[in-house]
């Protein structure tokens, strides 16, 4: 099992590099498909069957199709490769190194939960002891996957149970978010009347001069083009 996981992790890392360094956009997209697919498998290995399915359906299915679709639609030209001396590239590589080192060090030395931890030390924050002697207090010395134990009731059932009881409000809020995003996307991509060249007739007639105050009161809600912040008088 561990070997499989290890292999998956390495593959994911490689395909992620492909996303960033692929010369053409479509290759990046395909690399990303591979990456999310591999991640889905990793989820499965980690006993997250439900997420495995969601990852495949939403990411590999919907999102990536959307990406590919847009690439086909817009046909972006391939850009220049970043030069090796680009400070941003240097910075990015350094960031990779830094983050990886930080995570690795933190994970190796342990961030442990310690009930005896009070507010005496700087490294002691809200019950979590950070720092020396990490591994000793680790309740799971060996990293295993007691699948049968955890998911006796079934992973999907457990997740659904939590999702629709404890987390029902956030769940509903995310659904609302999706709705808003959908409406926003429709709004953004609609064909505007000016773009179709139907001329001034499409725009509302200019109000009579004596009507101006009312217009100014109403204006912000009518059009999206008005600047958000304007002077008062």
């Amino acid at each position, binding site marked *: 099992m561990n070997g499989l996981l290890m292999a998956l992790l390495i593959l994911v890392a490689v395909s992620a590099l492909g996303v960033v360094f692929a010369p053409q956009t479509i290759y990046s997209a395909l690399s990303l498909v591979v990456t999310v697919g591999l991640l889905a498998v990793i989820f499965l290995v980690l006993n997250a069957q439900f997420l495995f399915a969601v990852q495949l359906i939403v990411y590999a299915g919907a*999102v990536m199709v959307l990406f590919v679709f847009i690439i086909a639609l817009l046909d972006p030209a391939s850009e220049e490769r970043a030069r090796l001396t680009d400070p941003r590239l240097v910075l990015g590589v350094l960031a990779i190194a830094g983050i990886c080192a930080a995570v690795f060090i933190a994970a190796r030395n342990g961030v442990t939960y310690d009930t005896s931890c009070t507010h005496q030390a700087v490294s002691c924050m809200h019950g979590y002891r950070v720092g020396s002697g990490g591994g000793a207090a680790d309740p799971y010395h060996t990293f295993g996957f007691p699948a049968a134990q955890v998911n006796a009731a079934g992973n999907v059932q457990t997740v659904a149970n939590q999702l629709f009881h404890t987390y029902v409000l956030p769940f509903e809020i995310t659904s609302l978010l999706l709705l808003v995003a959908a409406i926003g996307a429709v709004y953004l991509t609609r064909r505007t009347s000016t773009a179709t060249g139907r001329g001034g007739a499409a725009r509302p007639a200019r109000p009579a001069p004596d009507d101006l105050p009312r217009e100014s009161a109403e204006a912000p809600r009518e059009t999206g083009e008005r600047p958000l912040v304007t002077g008062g008088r």
Partner: protein
Amino acid sequence: MFPYILLTAGFLFAVGVLGVLIRRNPLVVFMSIELMLNAVNLVLVGYSSYLNSEEGQIFAFMVIVVAAAEVVVGLGLLTRVFRIGRELDVDDLDEMQQ
């Protein structure tokens, strides 16, 4: 094994960051952001497994939903930008400078 999951997640995230930094194509930038989001999901699921708790998976689920919403709006914006005749290059979108 757990530390390696974290390590990989960190790596994925960093690569995403790198993509945002060095690529000028907004589509690729988006994909890099997706990478970062996925890296976070990996951490969440990893901890979920490590601590025998489903809550990490719940959050990962939420992240996926948000990511989907973000892609929808982001790609919508891109088509909009493309339609008004702009080249697809993040460095051209510099109205913030004014």
